């Protein structure tokens, strides 16, 4: 019996495929906005959500998603109000999320073992009903990330310009935050809350070593995400190691390979076209051509009566409407 015939492995692979697609999709926008750690921040907040679920006896996935959405929106609003920068807003929720989670878990009387399944994922325990939720949420994330691509791209590329084109920037930013929160909870079962951000950021960082356009970065990142998720799950089954960690280590290995390949490609390009980036200096007056006066009966000096003009490091003499400058044994037109 191969691993593909095992029902729990089929579910694990499907969950991995969807996580591998949706995490880099939303991650591309986060990286473009230079908020790469937002996924991590939301992951930490979701810990509080999971703990809340365990404490109140409701489904941890449900409470995690709600708390993550609230937290992500809070990051966005704090950032938008201006006074606190994005990274400070993030760190506030990092600490709040993990402290709240540990506190509530203690109150719920649950130990570290329960929390661990959410922190580092527990793919093999994904149930059929879990899978429906994962499929539904991942589909929503992908539809938004692809369908609203041009709008989200503009907002992440240049927020002020996007506002002047009349886009609802605040709403779109909030949408990205909510999508990130949804993705985090989707990925909670596969790679776990502590490593989910890696799956949002590392494939994007890997892709952009080799790409030039946003679109190709987006698709390459999703491709890498799917690849490492499936390969990681299969490897972890065969080698009997933790799937979440295996996925992330594989993703990082891809990054190292791509970074080296990218550097080599760029160097090769630079050697082949060494002057490609240099622009012609149109409009900048070039050095005056060296014109020697035809014949010159006398040497200009203090006394010759021709007006003197200071010209940088030397003196020119006005001679019948021309400027003459001494150059060795002759006179140049200046």
């Amino acid at each position, binding site marked *: 019996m191969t691993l593909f015939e095992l029902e729990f492995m089929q579910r694990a692979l499907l969950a991995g495929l969807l996580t591998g697609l949706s995490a880099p999709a939303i991650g*591309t926008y986060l*990286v*473009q*906005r*230079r908020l*790469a750690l937002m996924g991590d921040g939301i992951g930490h907040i979701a810990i509080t959500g999971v703990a809340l679920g365990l404490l109140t006896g409701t489904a941890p996935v449900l409470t995690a998603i709600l708390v993550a959405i609230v937290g992500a929106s809070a990051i966005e609003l704090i950032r938008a109000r201006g006074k606190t920068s994005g990274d400070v807003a993030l760190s506030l929720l990092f600490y709040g999320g993990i402290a709240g989670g540990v506190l509530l878990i203690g109150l719920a009387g649950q130990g570290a073992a329960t929390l661990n399944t959410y922190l580092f994922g527990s793919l093999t325990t994904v149930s059929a009903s879990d899978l429906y939720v994962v499929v539904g949420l991942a589909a929503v994330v992908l539809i938004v990330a692809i*369908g*609203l691509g*041009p*709008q989200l*791209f*503009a907002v*992440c*590329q*240049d927020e*002020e*310009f*996007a*506002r*002047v*084109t*009349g*886009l609802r920037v605040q709403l779109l930013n909030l949408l990205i935050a909510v999508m990130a929160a949804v993705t985090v909870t989707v990925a909670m079962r596969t790679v776990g809350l502590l490593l989910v951000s890696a799956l949002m950021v590392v494939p*994007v960082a890997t892709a*952009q070593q080799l*790409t*030039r*356009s*946003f*679109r190709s*970065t987006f698709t390459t990142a999703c491709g890498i995400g799917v690849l490492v998720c499936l390969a990681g799950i299969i490897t972890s089954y065969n080698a009997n190691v933790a799937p979440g960690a295996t996925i992330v280590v594989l993703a990082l290995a891809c990054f190292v390979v791509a970074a080296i390949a990218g550097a080599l490609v760029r160097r090769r390009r630079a050697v082949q076209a060494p002057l490609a*980036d240099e*622009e*012609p*200096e*149109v*409009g*900048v007056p070039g050095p005056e051509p060296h014109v020697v006066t035809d014949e010159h009966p006398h040497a200009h000096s203090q006394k010759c009566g021709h007006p003197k003009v200071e010209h940088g490091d030397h003196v020119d003499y006005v001679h019948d409407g021309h400027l003459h400058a001494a150059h060795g044994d002759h006179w140049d037109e200046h």
Partner: protein
Amino acid sequence: MTPSSPDTPKAVQVTDLSVDLGGRLVLRGIDLRIRPGEVVAVLGTNGSGKSTLVRTIVGLLQAARGEVRLFGTPVPRFRQWSRIGYVPQRITAAGGVPATVHEVVSSGLLSQRRLFRPLSAAQKSAVDQSLELVDMADRRKDAVAELSGGQQQRVLIARALVSDPELLMLDEPTAGVDLASQDIFAEAIRERVARGTTVIMVSHDLGPMDALIDRSIVLRRGRVVYDGPPHASQTHAHVHPHVVDDEQRGWLS
């Protein structure tokens, strides 16, 4: 300058505008009327409020007092953003993820695009034309981060022009830009002006754009100290507002 009747909507109408940034009044009691087709330079030293004025006109900053109207509509209610082209003050056009010149310029069409729809053929050709105008057509597939500062600025101009705006607002378009690029986009702006586009340009140093200007406004400490035809002393890097209208002289004393 033809006299227009008082009820034709001005392209920009600023009435008694004051703006405060973090509790400090940056603009105080600005009154401006800019007619369609005018090419206006907003001049002044650092901190005189030039950028704040432009950013308030496009709605990025809120007025503490007074009002800005675009084509007769107060800015908070203004919705026809495709009539406005804006070039923000930028050092770079690049974000955290690579993006091509074509992708960045296409984002200038968002005011005309519906959700979940790809670019139409007409929009694609508008992008190509806009790139042609700033002489960047051959770089359309290159990443913006790989371009020089002047080329990136040209991309931002193309992004503002692609929606064929009636009012073009440029915030320091020539800052740190090589002469070759300055010439190219002075040419691009000239072509727009010939078609009747209104242009408002904030600048320290107008460079090759100088010849296009038909009115200059000099700001000093958040007030207008000169508003009239441009003259030579203003087009250099340092602005010395020697000439002050008689009725405005009181502000300087």
